[in-house]
């Protein structure tokens, strides 16, 4: 099929066309090498292949069309931003580009060198003019999940208006009250930019749409418990990544269809690997597109990733918003409750996360856990110690990895991961 020429649209969005062409060429090659080289992929993944190929094309065109109709696009970086409120006013919530080592020279003009790769990446994408999503956004929403992001948003705000939500650091009643205040204030902000009121009717629909998406992802997750797993960890990660920027209704439908296929596979004992392939639970920092480095190394070293204890994974899909609320207040309370359950490493104490990781390891029959944190991500790198200790108590082998988006440590990581798998196999 002839690719449509999106250059006029990209130009209109103020993208740096030359740099953007290079980015797409690199991404296309990486996707081919990492994704299309996999064997025995489910047919349902073709939809995801298509979405990826049109991530900067058709999907952006859709966003521009919805904007023409007066609907708003809200760009986010975190699972803490309540998508339900954005959906309620007919808006679209999109995750912004933050997964590639790009625009580093630009980013380092405003950020210190020793900054987490994700922060450097989103700043680089913005300053180098390479992310069509942030260009198309009517509002960017940041949050105070870590010091790096918090301070970076102050700088990002100079280039694109950034609204920041305050995330509490503990889970007491006082913290809940603070978060409730944030949700209510965000609701008002969303109403203001959309020029539309949030009503019980449209919020109920927003909650349902977001929950349906999570339900589809939960179903996918459950199907990966089958031995052998009917889908690779790389493909499942991709589904979770695309969940952040695809149209939610179409996405949900496509993932349910994918799950039907996986269910058939599981029933017939069809998997993407052999029965005795070591099963790995990934845990830690989120992996944004195209950060596929660690799962790629794991899965090309003879293991399979069966779950992601991460914001791009279980942390974003585990909990639903209660749907039985009658009044707007009920629904707001339900949203507040749901988001307070997120076990981000920015909380203290965060024992529930250790419990969740143990549960996941057990439920998914993981042979080992690989804890990954982005270098300079203090919350996750500090918490890695407690995670490892908690897992060791249960006799679950754990490998801690600290890395970034660069490839210069790939050789050493491969040796460490292979040695870990040798250990797990016994």
């Amino acid at each position, binding site marked *: 099929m002839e690719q449509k020429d999106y250059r006029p649209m990209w130009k209109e969005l103020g993208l740096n066309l030359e740099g953007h062409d290079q980015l797409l060429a690199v991404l296309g090659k990486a996707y081919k090498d990492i994704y299309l080289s996999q064997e025995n992929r489910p047919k349902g993944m073709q939809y995801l292949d298509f979405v990826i190929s049109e991530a900067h094309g058709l999907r952006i065109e859709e966003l521009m069309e919805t904007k023409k109709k007066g609907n708003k696009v809200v760009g986010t970086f975190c699972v803490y931003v309540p998508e339900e409120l954005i959906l309620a006013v007919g808006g679209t919530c999109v995750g912004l580009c933050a997964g590639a080592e790009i625009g580093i020279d630009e980013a380092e003009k405003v950020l210190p060198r020793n900054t987490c790769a994700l922060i450097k990446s989103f700043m680089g994408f913005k300053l180098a003019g390479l992310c069509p999503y942030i260009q198309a956004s009517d509002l960017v929403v940041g949050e105070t999940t870590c010091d790096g992001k918090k301070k970076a948003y102050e700088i990002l705000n100079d280039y694109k208006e950034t609204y920041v939500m305050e995330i509490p650091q503990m889970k007491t009643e006082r913290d809940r009250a603070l978060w409730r205040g944030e949700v209510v204030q965000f609701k008002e902000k969303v109403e203001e930019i959309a020029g539309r009121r949030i009503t019980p009717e449209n919020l109920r629909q927003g909650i349902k749409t977001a929950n349906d998406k999570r339900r589809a992802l939960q179903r996918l997750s459950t199907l990966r418990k089958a031995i052998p797993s009917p889908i690779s960890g790389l493909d499942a990660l991709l589904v979770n990544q695309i969940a952040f920027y695809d149209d939610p209704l179409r996405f949900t439908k496509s993932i349910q269809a994918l799950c039907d296929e996986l269910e058939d596979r599981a029933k017939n004992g069809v998997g993407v690997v052999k029965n005795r392939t070591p099963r790995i639970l990934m845990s830690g920092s989120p992996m944004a597109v195209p950060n596929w480095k660690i799962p790629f190394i794991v899965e090309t070293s003879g293991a399979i990733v069966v779950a992601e204890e991460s914001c791009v994974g279980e942390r974003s899909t585990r909990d639903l918003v209660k749907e039985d609320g009658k009044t707007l207040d009920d629904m707001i309370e339900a949203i507040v409750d749901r988001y307070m359950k997120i076990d981000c490493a920015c909380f203290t104490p965060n024992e529930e996360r250790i419990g969740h990781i143990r549960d996941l390891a057990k439920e998914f029959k993981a042979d080992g856990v690989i804890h990954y944190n982005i270098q300079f991500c203090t919350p996750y790198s500090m918490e890695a110690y407690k995670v490892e200790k908690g897992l060791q108590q249960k006799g679950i082998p754990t490998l801690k990895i600290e890395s970034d988006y660069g490839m210069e*440590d790939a050789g*050493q990581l491969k040796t460490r991961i*292979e*040695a870990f798998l040798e*250990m797990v196999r016994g």
Partner: protein
Amino acid sequence: MRTAGIDIGSRTIKLVVVEGGEMVSSLLEETSHDPLEQCKRLMGQTYFDRILATGYGRHLFEIQFDVPIVTEIKAFARGAKAIFPKCRTVLDIGGQDTKAIALDEKGSVSRFEMNDRCAAGTGIFLEVIAKTLGYNIDEFGIEAMKVQENVQINSMCTVFAQSEVTSLMARGKKREEIARGVHQAILTRSLSLLKRVSIEKEIVFAGGVARNPCLRFLLAETLGEKILVSPNPQLIGAFGAAMIAQELGK
């Protein structure tokens, strides 16, 4: 059965042939710019029924010859255990990696740590600094043993350490004391890696850097333990791989 282990390291390639649990042949070549050619040359000099590859270049070898591979970590653990049956800890310092490995009673790897990405404190680091000080690599450790005092070296990055050493010489510091300081710095770094896994007896020091007498001495002195080093510590990985190859067919 004659099995071979080939350890394709960043600096040298080692080939060991084992028969009946004994090392019957060992060969070593520079890795050079064409490691596969060097591998072929080594393999042409001996014979074996089966071969298993390890080391930095194992994947290259695997693709070329379609043979099984193991990581250096498993290979060194196996090799050390075969030579020193009571071994529980292995420190392996090779050309560009340092690894600390803890073994359980049976000899399986129970924990390991390795340097993340930088070659600080490894063989290549020693080579570069020895050259800066005007020593060849074989005399470097011996010369460093001749003094008691050492000059503190603060930088472990090869590039920075080299300029640090250069400026220390310019300030008239004794060459042997700088050499001793460099060894001390490598020891400190290796110890922190070791402490993260275990320092349980018996401790085996392996890899090319284990040939350095000053490091062997400092390690034993600091830990207050006997450090076991085989006559050719750089062969332990290839030997371990050959031993694993013995067990594969069973």
